[in-house]
């Protein structure tokens, strides 16, 4: 389907066009740090995190390359987007020649006002909570298509897509059987059930001295039943499943500051990321029915010439479907506040305070008690950046962090894990982070 769309677009562009834009962009980050304990049995390489979304500045290395071809036709515009991404440890760090590559975007889009159409594979997202590198309301990865309707300062979008995860033999299973009519074995496909994900969003912007933009969002998931082979000639039925999510975001911006609120509520399958198997969370019918998620997130920033402050965080309550109050049922909160001072055209010093809180309903298997894990962290980040602004990138940073892990946080890690041993952790590191998108033609 994707290839066909591309052919159509190329044919169209060759025969009837008057302008072609080529865009290249990239987002990337390369952090490295040490805990300053080399020679003392430590020296491990990653900062502790106990929540789903910790500080952005502690994120693992990641790279996206964005290629966009955009042609302006008589009756509309057409384009395609290709975004390969690379994650995982860097060769220079691990010595392992093994890079993980994913195609995050590969889709074609057509726009003929007031309509838009797209098809392909894409990240389908709203606005992010910058400090935590997190999309609190909507962050889908789907293969499918969608349509939009545009009006002045507003738009409405619909999208539908599919996935079929390979993990855990939950949607997809290949197994070996005796080869038909021969000796040996052959592989057969014994489970292949696709999840359907649909999403709808409506947003509108009211401009003026204060810019206000609300967005309403709905998301639905459906998974048909399937039969899974579990061994010894036994097949078990995985029943159909589904879930719904809904929420809103509200962004308010002015001359010197801005703020965004997100809220999302979800039930059933929509409680989990669409690329995640909700392992350990099923009810006795092996469905996610009964699971629930409530999330509230905020972020805001204020700038006064050379001084800026940005702060954000979220709190969420997640309960799974099994009716058992265990580690899968939890309160989770994460927040960060960063103050920055700009020096000259390229200098920047940031000071960030962050807090992670995790309170699971289940008792901790190590302490046999309820534990509330907390990590408090302060980071000092002098930076050199390409331009003048509080989030201007590319940026080269030195990062020093001081983290305090309470006992509840240390108990989140197995006793044998290095991170469980130290209550106070110092880290010193370097990082580069960039994000740009430019029309190269």
């Amino acid at each position, binding site marked *: 389907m994707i290839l066909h769309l591309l052919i159509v677009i190329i044919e169209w562009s060759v025969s009837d066009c008057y302008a072609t834009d080529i865009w290249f962009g990239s987002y990337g980050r390369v952090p490295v740090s040490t805990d300053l304990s080399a020679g003392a049995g430590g020296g491990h390489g990653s900062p502790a995190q106990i929540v789903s979304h910790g500080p952005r500045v502690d994120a693992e290395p990641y790279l996206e390359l964005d290629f966009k071809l955009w042609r302006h036709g008589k009756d509309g515009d057409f384009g395609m987007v290709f975004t390969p991404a690379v994650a995982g440890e860097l060769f220079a760090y691990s010595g392992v020649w093994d890079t993980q590559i994913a195609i995050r975007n590969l889709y074609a889009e057509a726009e003929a006002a007031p309509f838009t159409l797209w098809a392909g594979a894409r990240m389908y997202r709203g606005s992010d909570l910058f400090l935590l590198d997190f999309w609190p309301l909507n962050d889908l990865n789907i293969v499918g298509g969608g349509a939009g309707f545009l009006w002045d300062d507003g738009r409405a979008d619909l999208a539908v897509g599919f996935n079929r995860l390979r993990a855990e033999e939950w949607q997809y299973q290949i197994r070996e059987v005796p080869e038909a009519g021969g000796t040996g074995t052959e592989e057969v496909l014994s489970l292949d059930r696709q999840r359907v994900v649909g999403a709808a969003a409506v947003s509108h912007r009211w401009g003026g001295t204060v810019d206000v933009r609300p967005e309403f969002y709905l998301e639905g998931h*459906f998974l048909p039943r399937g039969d899974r082979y*579990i*061994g*010894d000639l*036994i097949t*078990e039925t995985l029943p159909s499943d*589904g*879930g*719904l*999510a*809904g*929420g*809103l975001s509200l962004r308010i911006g002015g001359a010197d500051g801005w703020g965004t*609120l997100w*809220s999302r*509520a*979800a*039930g*059933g399958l929509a409680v989990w990321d669409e690329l995640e198997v909700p*392992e*350990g*969370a*099923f*009810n*006795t019918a*092996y469905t996610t*029915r*009964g*699971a*629930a998620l*409530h*999330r*509230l997130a905020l972020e805001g920033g204020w700038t006064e010439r050379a001084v800026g402050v940005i702060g954000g965080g979220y*709190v*969420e*309550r997640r*309960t799974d479907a*099994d*009716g*058992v*109050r*265990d580690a*899968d*049922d939890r*309160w989770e909160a994460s927040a960060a506040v960063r103050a920055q001072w700009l020096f000259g055209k390229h200098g920047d010093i940031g000071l960030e305070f962050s807090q992670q809180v995790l*309170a*699971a*309903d*289940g*008792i901790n*298997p190590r302490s*046999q*008690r*309820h534990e509330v894990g907390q990590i408090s962290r302060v980071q000092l980040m002098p930076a050199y950046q390409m331009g003048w602004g509080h989030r201007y990138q590319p940026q080269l940073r030195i990062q020093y962090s001081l983290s305090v892990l309470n006992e509840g946080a240390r108990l989140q890690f197995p006793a044998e894990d290095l991170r469980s041993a130290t209550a106070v952790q110092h880290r010193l590191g370097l990082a580069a982070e960039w994000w740009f998108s430019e029309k190269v033609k």
Partner: protein
Amino acid sequence: MPSIYPEYKNILSYLSLVVVSAAGCADDPYASDPAITSNVDDWRDEVIYQAMVDRFADGDVNNNEGVTRDPAELARWQGGDWQGLIDRASYLEALGVTALWISPVVANVEEDAGIGGYHGYWTRSFIDTNPHFGDIAKLRELVAVMHDHGIAVIVDIVVNHVGQLFYYDINQNGQPDITTLYATDGSDTVDIVTEWDPAYDPRGVQSFTSLGESGPAPLGWVYMPELNRLPPEPAEFQDDGWYHRRGRVTDWSDQAQVELADFPGGLKDLATERPEVREALIRVFSDWITWTDIDGYRIDTVKHVERDFWAEFAPAIRAHAEEIGKENFLLFGEVFDGDDALIGSYTGADGLDANVYFSQKYQVFDGVFKDNAPTSTIAALFAQRDAHYGIDPTGPAGVAPRDLLVNFLDNHDVPRFLWQQDDTTALQAALLFLFTEDGLPCLYYGTEQGFSGGNDPANREPLWRSGYATDGALFGYISSLAALRAEIPALRRGSLTLTWTTDHTGAEEDAGAVAFVRDDGASSALVVINASATQDAATSFGGVDMVTPFPAGTVLEQRWPEAGATWVVGAGGALRVEVGPRQGVVLVPAAG
């Protein structure tokens, strides 16, 4: 779309409020040690139900990692857990159960030689819960829920041994060899020796080299986290000296082996004569009472532990229970033996409160109710009670061990009643005896559903096969017996006087008849049962009727199986009651 997502309503309300719901906050009543409660006034009032947790109900599919769920593989994990018991508390209550005996709660070796540790008798950690069953909070919840349903909770424990956590490194090569070949007696004859489970050696298992013996074999502790086969916890149990290290029992008639050798399956025998081992076992099993508010222990493999261990362990556990406010904590054990004197010898002030009544199981329930042995067998067995069991009021609520025997037809270690005798009426007659004799009736799960499995593991069927039906004949029969026992105090706490038994097993008019009176001073009941499969039986022979303690002229009303018929006691208490094959009646004096 069908309305399968009730939580969606929450979403809509949530959207309008745009606040985080406070529902389901983490305030957990089970977060710390529970309040200690006393739930049993007199254990003779209770009806015990033995549930193998892995086989009762699967209430949480998320703890099923490694569970086969294959009904053809009963020697492996099936998926039952404490949540399943919680979900089915009403089932137990409807059956008339007032005390629940559950499988050991501690973390076990996951698997050994392809056999699962689902039963709970392969301890790996004395202080952690079995993750297939739940965590400590779930266990606390189970106990609390059962208490809310009027059901006390008894936990199975093992102090004799741990799971197969080490091997004997006989050839000292640092690995467990399944088969090694040695001339263990110095001859030219080569023996096959497994380092996991070598035969008993009174000196301790010895090392061998090609030149002969080379001293005690070092132990090789296993580190197989994927099977939870790790050195035991707490860490003090990782001391080699805490184990007898003499290998597997080969001669059950040798008491030294019975007490000092490893249990079959390579279950390593703890050196329970050592003070520090005793102290540790007392501590961990005291803690479980504090942690969970349980009401009693059923103790495994009692006769395989040094006898004087019990004189130290039992009083200490009782003292701890009393100290934390738990009254009438029950300690009863398994002496898997038909020797009545041996079973009784472990009871008393320096022993246990009671034991499961294996001698009765073999002689009465197997002998009389399955195989037509004379009912005089019952009289002969009961006549030994005073001599064999503790008669001093040392048990909970001042009840003597003699009066606290745990009666049972079958359990997880023996074939089910219906496997050996497939006539349901025989089972019903035995159940009538079980619920009306003195002592504590103990019902093995699945009996109420007519399960008929043979030897282990066939007798450990998943109960979900039954659909948990409560309208079956056996379920109704048992629940009516439990109700009868609850209704008539004498059937619970009254003394038992046999009024008729017989040596006859042929065509005589009383062949199969057994009758007894239960009397607690305030109420009384006469129970007459015919164990014969083929003919009516009467409490009379050769013109001589049964003599009861009731005065002449006493009118006895039938209370069970249905009310209605009456009998009048004749001169000298004489009474002739006739019942059909494998039938029985319960009579009580008419009011007024």
